[in-house]
């Protein structure tokens, strides 16, 4: 990865909507070259998506529950973690899935409309997978910070308007 690519990634990770012209000025890379870099990074699946961080708790119609589920797995002969993981992440309810070191193997992040919905997912779908030995479900109560972004914080400029 070149320095230019890295710099562009760092900027658009913070602000995916930045316009090309501004990005060009900020990096001193011309627009055509930026376009080419973005295209290449998209093709190589370095850039996967340009998404938006939404605080859904502020949207009454869209109330949802998030749970983190610790899953212990016995990898069967010929069936590694990857295969089990695949069976889990294919469910659309699953927002994220990580292989972990430590007390359990897989961490599943799942979103549902209600606790019941999540409970059903755990008992009917997750626990019924052959290799899954046990699950521990933790419900999120409040989001303070997500993807590096602090929720609820209005960090206003506290500086006085003109200083030496």
């Amino acid at each position: 990865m070149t320095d230019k690519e890295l710099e562009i990634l760092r900027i658009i990770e913070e602000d995916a909507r930045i316009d090309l012209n501004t990005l060009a000025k900020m990096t001193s890379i011309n627009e055509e070259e930026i376009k080419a870099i973005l295209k290449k990074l998209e093709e190589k699946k370095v850039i996967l998506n340009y998404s938006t961080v939404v605080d859904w708790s502020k949207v009454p119609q869209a109330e949802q529950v998030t749970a983190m589920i610790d899953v212990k797995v016995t990898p069967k002969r010929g069936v590694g973690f990857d295969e089990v993981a695949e069976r889990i992440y294919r469910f659309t309810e699953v927002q994220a899935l990580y292989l972990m070191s430590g007390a359990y193997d897989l961490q599943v992040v799942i979103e549902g409309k209600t606790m019941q919905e999540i409970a059903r997912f755990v008992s009917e779908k997750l626990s019924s997978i052959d290799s899954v030995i046990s699950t521990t479900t933790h419900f999120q109560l409040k989001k303070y910070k997500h993807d590096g972004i602090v929720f609820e914080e209005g960090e206003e400029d506290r500086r006085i308007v003109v200083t030496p």
Partner: protein
Amino acid sequence: MSPLNVKTKSRLSSRVQDIQPSGIRRFFDLASSMDNIISLGVGEPDFITPWNIREASISSMERGFTAYSANAGVLELRQEITKYMYNRFDVDYDAETEVLVTVGASEAIDIGCRAILDPGDEVIIVEPGFVSYSPLVSMAGGVPVSVGTRIEDDFKVSAEQIRAAITANTKALMISFPNNPTGAVMLREDLQEIAVLAEEHDLIVFSDEIYAELSYDNQHVSFAALEGMKERTILISGFSKAFAMTGWRLGFVMAPPDLLAAMLKLHQYSLMCAPTMAQYGALEALKSGMDDVERMKQSYKQRRGFFVESFAEMGLACHMPGGAFYAFPSIKATGLTSEEFAEKLLYEEHVAVVPGDIFGAGGEGHIRCSYATSMDNLQEATKRMKRFVSKHL
């Protein structure tokens, strides 16, 4: 009791009366009287001090470090400062006898002047420059002598320009690169000729390098790192800019032992020591803050790129500032003076900038615009400035 009917002397010293109030102050009052302004007038980072630094300071208070420190500053901090300056800028100072932790670089400038100046001693000040130099030289009994730099020279100063200002009374030279307000930097070869001159005329050189970390295109060269210069340099720096710690009031000065001892004497009587809790924050800053410095520097650099290019689109000449977080475009094309431009811009478009003449010789015809503000603000400010300039070109 009525006062005797004789003309009484002013309560104020003539020295203080002779000092002009800072032009920054006037602009501050103007800008503060208005709502919804976008300020490009702020001479400090827009970042909040990184949390690990704040946390270290809070923790020092929890542990009860609330007493005076050694006059020169917490020894461990002085040791970290010398290590940091050696690693970053190739200058070698002794933590026990050549470093003093001050209440900002501001105090360092003050006590440096008071330590070396006798009445009538002249100090050559390279301008445009930080607003405190000239008043602090005067308050110390010295005579400030301005040397102005120009946009044609990228606001660098040459040995010839300085030589032309030298008299039998010249005691010292005051330089600061990267520069506030111009953003100018001096490369090694630029500084080298100043060093030769300093040697020739036996000058003490104040080198205010508070923006050293914010050098975007070249590694900063410290004046004290040049061959033979340490002996005659008062090297001033601090935490305000690189670590976003302006409100902490913490800086430092490095100088040969005789000069440092003199400054320490003044510091000890007027300040006792720099705030202890701020010193513990600074200690953490040096131990683990360099990643944050780098992150902030990259962000300034990107904003510099965006901002400086927009002046060309407005039709204003602007040199590429190699450091700090200021652009210093020429507004001569508009036919307005710096003060007129800044005032009209404030009233008509609600954008605050600082008129260049405030920063001394060479500043007229320019405005200082700080790009230490959000990209959103910069985008809106440049839009408004474009509209403004097109009306006045």
